[in-house]
């Protein structure tokens, strides 16, 4: 009996003990979870930090993968003024094997930072530190490179902190700077950077982590709340080396003839891919001050002008397509052409009496009068419709460049007698250099227009493509019309006075000159926009080259564009190893 009682007692004690422990735990739990919850969560929060995970903005590369724009790591050197002790801090250093303690004053520390980053304004940094001594944060130096950043860290200054600050770098400088565009501190400003921001942009993520009292990240406490998403890569169709060559030759010739600006295009005839779209002057995106604001974009796409005689190619191809004439149609080109119903007389760049020109002769000798006579063969609305189909006035070149212009062709209903004639030789209508290049692509591609491509695609970080260019081709003029126009244009490099400057031995080249008058103050002044446009080899056209100089001072004829046109063609031959022509040029009589 006693034994049974004793065991019952033991059981009671055990149960009581368990209950007591349970009660204690419950009280403690309620105390922590309810009563002191706020205090504890505040304490935890103060140890829990959130940091930015930086996503990398995508690169812009050329057709060969040469990087034109990329993201780089930059670091901001910051400070906590509240932690700065004006009397300085002590640093343990080893001098000749003896460990010593040295005192480093604030000014000394700032000087050390300045030396480490290769020169920074010590006074400005001192002002930032002392401006608000209670502030926990102040910038000292922004955007330093990794090695400079490392040197600052090695100084072990107690109140100096750092920040990551991704930045944009353009390793090839002004090469294709017109196309790449600019980045401001708050985002893209222009060009491809802006137009293709959806592809390039990255998303920053956040990571949370606990920090111990002594400022060490608690291992294993990191929680990625939002992963960073890297941006995609924009692949341009440009060849950076060729682009450099074009920009360099534009700069050399543009300076020599005192031009205001210049553009150059190289287009792959069979794909419509733009290999060169050069502007001079060109901005270096690394240095926003490297060009005047009006020169910082791409005039080649955004600045329409009256292109002049290079448009005659479109007029002649249209008339052949409509069956109104052929290459040998005979014209008697008079000394002038008075537009019916007006007193306005069209003249040529050189004085002449009656000339017995064929269609080829009119085109090669670039006779305005001859083209004006041809306009009588086709009504205005049909002629305008052809210009529209070549892409003028209604649509862009297809390159989809930011703010690309469509140019302007007067609606036949609103047109006037003068414009209805002059638009056929590129006055009274406007086009961008890109549109002119597109015209010659169409002619060289046997009459089939392929909208120009500047951006080949957008490659996502995982290697897939979210966008691939897929231009839809349209036939503008018949194969015969386009090909016979090409053969006529070949006369420029074989029979024209400029032929010797234009020719490249072994290659058959079609070319057209343009010397357009520039409208100013309601009339035409002495300024000219001179250009050479062409394609080669004529027996198997592969590349279009267009060179334009605006408002040259020392040479106001299209011959100013010839050396550059010729040099770029030679460079294209070398770059793409274009094989020489194999078929001789056929007869191409200019007169009868």
């Amino acid at each position, binding site marked *: 009996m006693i034994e049974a009682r004793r065991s019952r007692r033991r059981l009671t004690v055990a149960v009581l003990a368990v209950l007591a422990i349970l009660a204690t735990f419950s009280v403690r739990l309620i105390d922590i979870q309810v009563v002191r919850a706020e205090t504890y969560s505040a304490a935890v929060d103060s140890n829990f930090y959130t940091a930015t995970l930086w996503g990398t903005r995508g690169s812009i590369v050329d057709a060969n993968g040469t990087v034109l724009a990329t993201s780089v790591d930059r670091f901001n050197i910051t400070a906590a003024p509240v932690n700065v002790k004006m009397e300085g801090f002590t640093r343990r250093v080893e001098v000749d094997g003896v460990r010593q303690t040295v005192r480093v004053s604030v000014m000394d520390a700032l000087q050390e930072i300045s030396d480490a980053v290769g020169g920074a304004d010590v006074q400005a940094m001192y002002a930032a530190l002392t401006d608000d001594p209670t502030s926990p944060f102040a910038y000292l130096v922004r955007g330093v490179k990794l090695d400079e950043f490392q040197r600052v860290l090695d100084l072990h200054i107690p109140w100096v902190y750092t920040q990551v600050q991704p930045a944009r770098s353009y390793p*090839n400088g002004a090469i294709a700077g017109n196309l790449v565009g600019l980045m401001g501190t708050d985002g893209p400003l222009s060009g491809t950077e802006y137009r293709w921001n959806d592809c390039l942009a990255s998303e920053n993520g956040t990571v949370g982590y606990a920090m111990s009292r002594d400022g060490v990240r608690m291992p294993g406490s990191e929680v990625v709340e939002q992963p960073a998403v890297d941006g995609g890569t924009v692949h341009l169709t440009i060849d950076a080396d060729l682009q450099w060559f074009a920009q360099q030759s534009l700069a050399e010739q543009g300076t020599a003839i005192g031009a205001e600006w210049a553009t150059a295009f190289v287009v792959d005839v069979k794909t419509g891919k733009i290999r060169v779209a050069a502007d001079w002057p060109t901005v270096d995106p690394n240095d926003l001050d490297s060009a005047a604001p009006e020169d910082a974009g791409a005039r080649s796409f955004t600045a329409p002008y009256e292109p002049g005689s290079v448009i005659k190619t479109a007029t002649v191809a249209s008339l052949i397509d409509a069956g109104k004439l052929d290459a040998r149609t005979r014209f008697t080109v008079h000394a002038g052409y008075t537009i019916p119903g007006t007193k306005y007389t069209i003249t040529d760049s050189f004085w002449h009496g009656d000339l017995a020109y064929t269609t080829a002769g009119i085109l090669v000798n670039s006779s305005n009068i001859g083209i004006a006579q041809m306009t009588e063969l086709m009504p205005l609305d049909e002629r305008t419709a052809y210009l529209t189909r070549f892409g003028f006035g209604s649509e862009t070149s297809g390159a989809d460049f930011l703010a690309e212009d469509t140019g302007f062709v007067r609606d036949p209903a609103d047109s006037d007698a003068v414009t209805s004639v002059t638009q056929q030789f590129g006055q009274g209508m406007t086009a961008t250099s890109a549109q002119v290049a597109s015209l010659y692509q169409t002619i060289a591609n046997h009459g089939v227009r392929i909208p120009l491509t500047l951006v080949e695609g957008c490659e996502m970080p995982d290697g897939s493509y979210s966008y691939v260019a897929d231009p839809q081709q349209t036939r503008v003029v018949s194969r015969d019309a386009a090909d016979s126009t090409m053969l006529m244009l070949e006369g420029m490099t074989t029979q024209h006075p400029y032929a010797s400057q234009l020719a490249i031995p072994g290659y058959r080249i079609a070319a057209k000159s343009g010397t357009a008058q520039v409208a100013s103050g309601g009339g035409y002044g002495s300024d000219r926009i001179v250009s050479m446009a062409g394609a080669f080899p004529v027996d198997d056209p592969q590349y279009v080259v267009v060179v334009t100089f605006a408002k040259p001072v020392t040479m106001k004829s299209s011959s100013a564009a010839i050396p550059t046109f010729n040099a770029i063609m030679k460079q294209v031959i070398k770059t793409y190893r274009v094989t020489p022509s194999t078929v001789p040029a056929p007869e191409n009589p200019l007169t009868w």
Partner: protein
Amino acid sequence: MSATAALRVPVPAGDGGTPPRHLEIVPTRAQRRARPRLYAALVAVGGIMLILLAQLMMSIVLAEGAYRIADLQTDKRDLGRETRAAQESLSQLGSTQSLTANAALLGMVSSGNPMFLDVASGAALGNASATDASPVGSAGNLVGNALVDGTTTVRGEGVTGDMQQTAVLTGGGSPADLMLTPVTAPGSVAADGGAHGRIPSPTMR
């Protein structure tokens, strides 16, 4: 409780005279065996201690591993930064502006005209002489690059003025040599002083 209290009431001393004998029920063998033994208690306590110790060791190892992971992640981040910094300076060195500056420093000039190799005769056709080189670029690079300063050009590095001269005159065993030797090759047209090569080109009317 009253029953317990009653039991504990001592037996009056003067009742009987002899002290009561202490009686104890001896547990049976089976009962004795059923009782917990000391060594079992030791095993239990020892086991708990062992488990606690193992847990401690494990958490030490885990914590160490976590620190190691954190260290390695930091290393990875730093190495990534170094890689990108190296990539950055490589692309600056590889930029056209830097290359043209270095090439000019080494005495190189760009060739203007296309050259052809006639596989039938082995002769090089065209004119690649340096003096007739493309005018483009000869006046120095005009396409700016704020990233390319003096630090990206090779200086010294065994390139002396004499060597530059040699490089210009002989090609110095560089690929340029190949381009320049056809000057003396039979059937070459480069020797005739700047005239365009006798490329078997189609008739130009």
